[in-house]
């Protein structure tokens, strides 16, 4: 396997470069996926039936906490990759752990929010609006959940194998994934919650 030392480790082999490009294209598909979910939400947001409307259930405080957690985690994983490029394994792992913890925190608050909704009688079965809301948020939440497992698996490998073309490549791709989840959240934050409360 040819290793190009002029590039960061995660780009250093041809295979790694293929994987990074491939993942970006996957993210393009993810944009299409979330756009569709947003389409569904925008079309159904007025379809409240006999259930509550957005204004009845959205709570700004919860949303702000979630937003802050996710934004920060996106920042820390960026720092993690930066540390990785400096070859600082311990710093990198610390940042990754912080990221995952923040992600977990986000998830806890999101689940909390879902539970509140359900208690208020707003379930995924209540109305077109709520079905689309839960599906949009749920898909994002599942992505975060998946990310937690994936990130943990990568951390285990970094810990054991150190920085190799493979582990750095996986970590970098994971960081792309995580940043992307933040991008999606920004749109949820703006066009679901803020627009809904506007």
């Amino acid at each position, binding site marked *: 396997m040819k290793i190009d030392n002029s590039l960061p480790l995660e780009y250093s082999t041809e295979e790694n470069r293929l994987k990074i490009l491939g993942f970006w*294209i996957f993210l393009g598909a993810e944009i299409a996926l979330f*756009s569709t979910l947003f389409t569904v939400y925008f079309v159904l947001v007025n379809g409240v039936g006999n259930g509550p409307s957005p204004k009845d259930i959205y709570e700004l405080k919860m949303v702000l906490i979630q937003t802050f957690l996710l*934004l920060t985690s996106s920042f820390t994983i960026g720092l993690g990759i930066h540390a990785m490029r400096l070859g600082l394994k311990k710093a990198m792992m610390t940042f990754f752990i912080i990221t995952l913890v923040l992600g977990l925190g986000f998830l806890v608050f999101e689940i909390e929010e879902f539970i509140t909704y359900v208690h208020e009688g707003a379930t995924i079965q209540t109305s077109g609006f709520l079905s689309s809301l839960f599906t949009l948020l749920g898909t994002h939440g599942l992505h975060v959940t998946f990310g937690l497992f994936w990130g943990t698996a990568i951390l285990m490998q970094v810990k054991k194998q150190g920085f190799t073309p493979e582990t750095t490549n996986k970590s970098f791709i994971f960081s792309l994934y995580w940043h992307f989840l933040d991008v999606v959240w920004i749109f949820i934050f703006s066009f679901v919650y803020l627009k809904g409360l*506007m």
Partner: protein
Amino acid sequence: MKQLFPVSHVMGFVFSLVLSLVALTVVFYDMSYAMGMTILLITAFAQASVQLLMFMHMGESKDKVTLYTNIAYALFVGVFTILGSLLLLVWDI
């Protein structure tokens, strides 16, 4: 310690926090629907660009043209799907 926190990343983070705060104004100030949507669109796309360009290093590799094309195509499809669906199903024109 300092090398762990590169200025660009810190700036990016601060910037995204600020943009979030700006977006928040639509909730707290009374404004027209058009105005609110404009603010949200600008802040959301600005934040997304911060993530893509600054944190995700979109422009750093030799494939950057591919990456930009990819994202542009995705946005094209996404935007037209959303607008077209609203035109067909919701807007009464």
